[in-house]
């Protein structure tokens, strides 16, 4: 990426010559902020207890071996929080997994947004939690052979929601996306 003066501002080298980021995913990686998702991209919403999720792919289609981005917006009801990805033993951390048909779509390293500290009176453990709204930008790699057709994704967000005084059992939200394969040029 070049700055306004034409100097190299950031440089990013792919580790694999076959797996390449789509345009919006590349911008997200280089800019460090979400590049958003087009309105015609596959999307789904789901809810479980006090947490709702809106899941949208950052591209209307995929190419074989392409890395795209899943934009997951979590909304947590007031008075409740969910644990972040790093949490003490015995508590369920936030996690995102994807399965697909055909098989081959995998989740890459997630740059988790910052959590906030949370302490329960009387407990020694300190917690790192999310509340309110949280946006996750999740890289997904379509390690699928060309001409495989539409890819069906099942996106699962696992979490545990608690308030200051009580907790729900660990839960998960699952959203299904149908992603057409882009025609090859």
């Amino acid at each position, binding site marked *: 990426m070049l700055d*306004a*003066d*034409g*100097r*190299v*501002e950031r440089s990013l080298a792919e580790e694999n010559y076959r797996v*390449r980021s789509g345009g919006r995913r590349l*911008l997200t990686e*280089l800019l460090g902020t979400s590049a958003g998702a087009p309105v015609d991209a596959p999307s789904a919403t789901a809810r479980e207890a006090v947490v709702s999720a809106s899941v949208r792919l950052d591209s209307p289609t995929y190419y074989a071996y392409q890395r795209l981005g899943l934009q997951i917006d979590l909304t947590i009801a007031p008075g409740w929080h969910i644990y972040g990805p790093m949490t003490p033993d015995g508590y369920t951390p936030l996690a995102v997994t994807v399965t697909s048909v055909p098989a081959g779509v995998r989740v890459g390293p997630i740059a988790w947004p910052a959590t906030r500290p949370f302490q329960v009176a009387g407990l020694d453990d300190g917690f790192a939690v999310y509340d309110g709204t949280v946006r996750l930008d999740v890289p997904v790699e379509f390690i699928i052979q060309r001409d495989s057709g539409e890819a069906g994704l099942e996106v699962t967000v696992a979490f545990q929601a608690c308030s200051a005084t009580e907790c729900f059992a660990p839960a998960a939200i699952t959203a299904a996306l149908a992603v057409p394969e882009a025609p090859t040029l």
Partner: protein
Amino acid sequence: MSSTTLAGSEAPKVGDPFPDVRLPDQSGRAVDLHAARGARRALVVFYRSAKW
């Protein structure tokens, strides 16, 4: 690439000026990178191969 020979040289590092590059666009018109971007930021992407 025309106008600058990069064969055998290292890629520009963060902070280095990106070299002058003039290449044809999809219509065959020659485009100078720095002239085209003006004073805007730019994203330069190199693909090692375009078919897989």
